């Protein structure tokens, strides 16, 4: 084999990738073009997929295509069914990609574009995609067992219980954070509120059509739905321009919170075909379509990145978007796109039951995660192409920014960036909003970035339409966040019904209405509380809740990587245990450091308990002390609110940290036992059976009995 012919192209890709990275890291120019970032990412992914993912497939996991997968052995035409790898790739990607990779990078952009980008790309290659691929493989070898079941069987009941706590609490925090993003995006925006509200009748219409009129015609109804969505966005523009209607559609954050809580409860109790299923189709197509458009848009416009490589906030930890230094907080804030424990739930549920061939865990597990990472890179690009002054005026703690463009401009100057009040106002006018100041949560920032890129493309044809594109992006994010809220509430509801069902039988039946209502109410009350607390947090809810969400997500990743390492050791592959072991060590270091700072830091901007102490002092003294005032509290009532919030958040941080330590300690007992030889490695794999499918899923002629 001609070595140059075989590897020449890879040497070329490596050189291109390295040059792009070189420009990103070292270029002395004023601003760097986003194209360098795009190509650095693509070249890195290609090399990782070709070499590292292949190494994991062949050496570490040792996939065996002569072994029948559960989809083939247990094929029932329903949940077990060999599915074409390209189709399964689409399904798996749609299931893992949500709002997470869009929000995290936007928040992390306050430290400059480089730290977040490096973590997104290096993290996905060495940790995130590895986690998804190995979890998928191990679950597939166990007939599609869930992460919780695997943790219980491979580590022990303690590990299993910790996994369950992680899953339930991450669900509650996640739903609250996402709902908070929607509230921040729609508050005081009649255009956004109207077009999102219109998605409800559109979904019901689609649901009726799919269920009764033309059952199963998913594509035609999705096209109708997308057409109606675009009409709803245009209609929102008219609403916002006619004052009586605009007033009727202008909501305060608390009104939106109430509406979301009621909505979440109703959507969870109703049959799925009314809202959830049609919304699922709609948001999946919107998601894939918008991501594809964004990739094309960035490639056409090649915008310059206006944010510097690093800002001082990367080192001093005083960032106005969220507090804390580069290590560990970049790695907490950017979870999805680099390493997301949530994916381990998808990779150990539906997908492993549909894989045709064992070796396909590489394109589906590793490949789909690379694409998700690419989405995160694009979100980062959209955020850093904004004027940094506009970025900080949108994302900083609203208490510091004040209400007017003048006060915001002054505050931004205080952060060391500059933006004129006129720029803030004209940006708001361009996207069709009254104000963009203090629009935290990431979604509005991303929407401004996306709309600038799309307007750049449509501008070529003579119409920039930036306000339309802004609300298109807001609608797209809000739509699939709401779909996650629906689906997540339902998943949580089933988990609670299952839990209580262990104690009291009738509860376990999903269709039992009282059980349904009680469990739905419990889960909605859980995230509803955090949402309400976040919306009314005097210090800005996102900067308090988002790190907590990141920690919970990385806790789940720690569980998945621990399970993976345990299974590798049990398989006698101790030599390769570093493949999951090193990401685990990194994840544990990051998560525990972040938890440590959140619990013990004496800096009241970071430590929950330091903040709590300052609030308590203020309440006892009857007046705000300097610390509280510097954080942005305005009254004693604010201090009371902060006291409650920090207590809850602090206790949660402790629970997460303890859960991680327990899981790893419990598993390492097992590891050392096996390595020393005092424990028998018991693998719970399903036994080997010969496969009769080829790699395209066609039946292979069976050899006559006795021929072998």
């Amino acid at each position, binding site marked *: 084999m001609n070595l140059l012919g075989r590897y020449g192209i890879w040497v070329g890709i490596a050189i291109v990738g390295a040059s792009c990275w070189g420009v990103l890291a070292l270029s002395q120019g004023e601003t760097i073009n986003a194209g360098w970032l795009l190509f650095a990412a693509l070249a890195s992914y290609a090399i990782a997929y070709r070499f590292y993912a292949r190494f994991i497939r062949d050496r570490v996991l040792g996939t065996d295509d002569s072994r029948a997968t559960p989809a083939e052995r247990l094929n029932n*035409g329903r949940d077990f069914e060999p599915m074409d790898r390209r189709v399964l790739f689409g399904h798996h990607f749609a*299931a893992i990609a949500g709002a997470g990779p869009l929000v995290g990078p936007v928040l992390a952009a306050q430290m400059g574009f480089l730290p977040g980008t490096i973590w997104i790309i290096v993290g996905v290659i060495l940790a995130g995609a590895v986690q998804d691929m190995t979890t998928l493989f191990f679950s597939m070898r166990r007939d599609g067992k869930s992460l919780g079941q695997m943790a219980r069987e491979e580590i022990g009941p303690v590990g299993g219980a910790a996994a369950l706590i992680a899953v339930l609490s991450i669900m509650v925090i996640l739903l609250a954070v996402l709902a908070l993003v929607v509230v921040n995006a729609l508050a005081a925006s009649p255009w956004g509120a109207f077009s999102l509200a219109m998605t409800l009748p559109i979904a019901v219409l689609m649901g009726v059509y*799919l*269920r009764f009129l033309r059952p199963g015609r998913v594509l035609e109804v999705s096209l109708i739905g997308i057409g109606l969505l675009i009409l709803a966005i245009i209609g929102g523009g008219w609403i916002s321009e006619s004052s009586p209607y605009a007033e009727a559609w202008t909501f305060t954050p608390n009104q939106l919170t109430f509406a979301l809580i009621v909505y979440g409860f109703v959507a969870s109790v109703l049959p799925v*075909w009314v809202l959830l299923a049609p919304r699922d189709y709609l948001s999946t197509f919107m998601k894939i379509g918008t991501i594809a458009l964004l990739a094309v848009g960035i490639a056409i416009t090649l915008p310059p990145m206006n944010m510097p490589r690093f800002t001082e906030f990367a080192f001093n930890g005083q960032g106005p978007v969220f507090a804390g230094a580069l290590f560990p907080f970049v790695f907490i804030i950017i979870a999805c796109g680099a390493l997301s424990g949530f994916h381990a739930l*998808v990779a150990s549920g*539906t997908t492993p039951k549909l894989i045709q061939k064992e070796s396909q865990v590489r394109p589906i597990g590793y490949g789909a995660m690379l694409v998700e990472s690419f989405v995160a890179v694009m979100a980062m690009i959209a955020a850093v192409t904004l004027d940094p002054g506009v970025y900080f005026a949108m994302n900083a703690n609203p208490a510091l920014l004040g209400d007017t463009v003048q006060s915001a401009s002054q505050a931004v100057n205080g952060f060391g960036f500059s933006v004129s009040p006129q720029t803030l106002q004209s940006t708001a006018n361009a996207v069709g909003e009254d104000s963009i100041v203090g629009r935290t949560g990431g979604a509005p920032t991303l929407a401004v970035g996306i709309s600038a890129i799309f307007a750049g493309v449509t501008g070529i044809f003579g119409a920039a339409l930036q306000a339309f594109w802004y609300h298109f992006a807001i609608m797209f994010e809000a739509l699939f966040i709401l779909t996650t809220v629906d689906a997540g509430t*339902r*998943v949580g509801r089933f988990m609670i019904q299952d839990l209580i069902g262990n104690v009291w039988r009738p509860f376990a039946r999903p269709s039992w209405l009282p059980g349904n209502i009680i469990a739905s109410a419990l889960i909605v009350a859980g995230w509803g509380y955090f949402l309400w607390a976040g919306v009314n947090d005097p210090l800005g809810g996102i900067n308090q809740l988002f790190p907590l969400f990141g920690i919970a997500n990385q806790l789940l990743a720690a569980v998945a990587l621990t399970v993976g390492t345990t299974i590798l050791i049990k398989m006698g592959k101790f030599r390769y245990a570093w493949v999951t072991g090193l990401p685990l060590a990194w994840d544990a270091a990051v998560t525990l450091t972040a938890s440590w700072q959140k619990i013990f830091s004496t800096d009241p901007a970071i430590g929950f308990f330091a903040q709590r102490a300052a609030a308590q002092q203020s309440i006892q003294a009857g007046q705000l002390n300097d610390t509280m005032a510097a954080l942005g509290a305005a009254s004693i009532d604010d201090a009371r609110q902060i006291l409650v919030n920090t207590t809850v958040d602090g206790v949660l941080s402790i629970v997460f940290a303890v859960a991680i330590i327990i899981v790893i300690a419990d598993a390492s007992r097992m590891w050392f036992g096996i390595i020393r030889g005092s424990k028998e490695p018991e693998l719970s794999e399903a036994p080997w059976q010969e496969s009769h499918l080829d790699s395209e899923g066609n039946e292979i002629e069976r050899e006559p009995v006795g021929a072998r």
Partner: protein
Amino acid sequence: MANPVRAIWDYLKEISGENAYDRYLAIHAATHPGKPPMSRGEYYRARQDEKYANPGSRCP
């Protein structure tokens, strides 16, 4: 498959589950000869109820 639009449309059809019913008919005819299969509506409703009765999870 020379036409890329056609190819994308077919892929979307496969991914959205529109083709699932046709495959079901084939499998049903092979495994339960003589038994009448479900109609498209019945099949679709059964699949939908089943899918969400046992929800997986998705990423944020």
